[in-house]
């Protein structure tokens, strides 16, 4: 089981990259009591039947690992949401893409910690492949004040070049951590 919510989202983002998505959008909206996550991609999508199977832990499409019989990314998410009073919805259309809407109840004592968001963004930006990833992080404080930032993979690649070069990855990590500075 994943330790933090950000690890859980990383798993789902990796699914989008592996589904061959050209564009992935991730929105994180944190309010006092809730964290809302919206993830959409234009990857290969799933049929209704495949989507039902993806919710089962003892199913995988057999493409990645021919003889394996487990796929735990989505089941982990469902389990967490069900045990902690959250909400979860997944829609998918074959050859069109997949979208996920999740709400975590941050007030529930059993909800995992949020984890390291800039760490998640670093990893999600650094998967191999030619995809656009747009991340919007927004926080609404108790008094209604909004803070946040937006990241675009292509824009950052234009500046840093290949993220797999350690020098570029280190600068990207510094940049992402610094974006958290002015959040309330």
């Amino acid at each position: 089981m994943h330790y933090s919510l950000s690890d859980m989202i990383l798993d789902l983002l990796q699914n989008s990259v592996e589904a061959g998505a050209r564009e992935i959008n991730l929105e994180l909206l944190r309010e006092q009591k809730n964290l809302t996550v919206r993830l959409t991609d234009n990857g290969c999508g799933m049929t209704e039947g495949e989507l039902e199977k993806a919710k089962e832990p003892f199913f995988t499409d057999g493409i990645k690992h021919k003889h394996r019989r487990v796929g735990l990314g989505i089941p982990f998410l469902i389990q967490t949401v069900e045990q902690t009073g959250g909400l979860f919805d997944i829609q998918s259309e074959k050859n069109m893409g997949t979208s996920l809407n999740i709400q975590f109840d941050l007030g529930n004592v059993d909800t995992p910690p949020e984890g390291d968001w800039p760490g998640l963004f670093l990893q999600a930006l650094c998967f191999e492949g030619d995809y656009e990833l747009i991340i919007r992080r927004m926080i609404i404080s108790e008094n209604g004040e909004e803070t946040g930032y937006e990241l675009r993979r292509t824009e950052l690649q234009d500046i840093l070049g290949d993220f797999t070069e350690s020098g570029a990855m280190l600068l990207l990590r510094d940049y992402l951590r610094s974006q958290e500075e002015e959040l309330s």
Partner: protein
Amino acid sequence: MAKMTLEELRKLRSSQKSEMERRDVEGKETHIIVGMGTCGIAAGAKGALDGFLDTIKKNNLDDVVVKQTGCMGLCYAEPTVEVKVPGMPDTIYGNVDAKVAAEIVEKHIMHKELVQDHIQDKPAGDIIK
């Protein structure tokens, strides 16, 4: 650390590049590949990745290639990491936390010495192509 702008990031990257050219670093032949499947994530592969990046930074190794991959089929030994260094056998290490990651950089990559306690033989049979 104040919030960095894209322009500041661009300047830092360009000075880093000229420093790398000045040092005339060798080609990008050293690869660190971190397993980031569900199993890797659950076992703390993120901590391993941060450990690699911190040690790379400490030793100014700006030209190492760091990649993430999916499950390597060694879920029982996660986090797993494959290390490729010229003149060394390609090696898969298991149970790599931040401390072991630092050891891999300083021993295996910098001094061409294997980190004995963490070597896994090879990817699992059903994963090898």
